[in-house]
């Protein structure tokens, strides 16, 4: 897999902590593998929107990667509930269903960005950098002591 300069939290230089939400175990593992190449740390996983909310409360991750089509509670509704209680939550929707109406609904309800599956690592990496930059976190060079 391609090498990426690690993205670190600017405030303490620690790895970005991720919560990955997808009903597919396979997709979760793939995303986990991908964000680890960005220098990230997966601190939790969830398979539906209800569990995602509970895991967010428990773990307060730096970023949530959230699928849309899931059983029990879909990703857009879960994102809305998380952002309502935690306005600074950074949620990136990651879904194969990326029609305009869906993307607009997700962004209107508090998601920061949308990435369509199949996920290209270089695309997700740029989105992560962009979303983290909002709060002053920077991408560091691979050789910068990170």
């Amino acid at each position, binding site marked *: 897999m391609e090498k990426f300069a690690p993205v670190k939290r600017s405030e303490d230089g620690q790895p970005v902590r991720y919560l990955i939400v997808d009903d597919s175990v396979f997709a979760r593992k793939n995303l986990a593998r991908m964000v680890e190449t960005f220098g990230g740390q997966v601190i939790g996983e969830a398979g539906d929107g209800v569990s995602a909310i509970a895991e967010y409360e428990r773990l307060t991750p730096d970023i949530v990667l959230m699928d849309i*089509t899931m059983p029990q509670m879909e990703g857009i509704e879960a994102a809305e509930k998380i952002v309502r209680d935690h306005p600074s939550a950074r949620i990136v929707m990651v879904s194969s269903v990326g029609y305009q109406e869906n993307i607009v609904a997700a962004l209107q309800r508090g998601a920061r960005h949308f990435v*369509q599956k199949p996920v290209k690592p270089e695309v997700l990496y740029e989105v992560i950098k962009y979303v983290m930059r909002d709060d002053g976190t920077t991408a560091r060079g691979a050789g910068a002591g990170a």
Partner: protein
Amino acid sequence: MRMDLIQPFINSADAVLAQALQSPISIETLSMEEEAYRRKGIAAEVALTGEIEGRIIFDADLAAAVQLASRLAGVEVSETNEELVREAVCELANQIIGNAVTTLNDQGFHFHVRPPTQHTSEQGSRSSEDTEALVMGFNTSSGNVFMNVALRHHRRQTLERSAVAG
């Protein structure tokens, strides 16, 4: 046969499989379904609800499914790891069908996609009078992959919407 409903699934399968396998694929067979669908290997089913209703079965013969799982996972997956192979087929179905649903929704068809489920029965449901069903066979560098698309389009609802809009 509404080819405008089917074409996005062909295009999406082509794009997603070619990206996953890093090699071109081709359609080998295209036929109307007359009998209940017979599963060929490891299969996943996705249901659609709304203006377009129906189901799509994505089916890969075992060798192809194992290779696809290995490609997607980035590590060698053994055919004995059946659960992982099934998960990979479900995720591929999700990506192919999700991308096609995206195209159709952006074209003005409004419907919803359910999460993929593993399709383990030997046969799927028969096509009915008002359901368009097509079986596509794709030839890939990893083996054969099939997609059975059975859709019903609620024309009246669309016409009513057009009338209101017009």
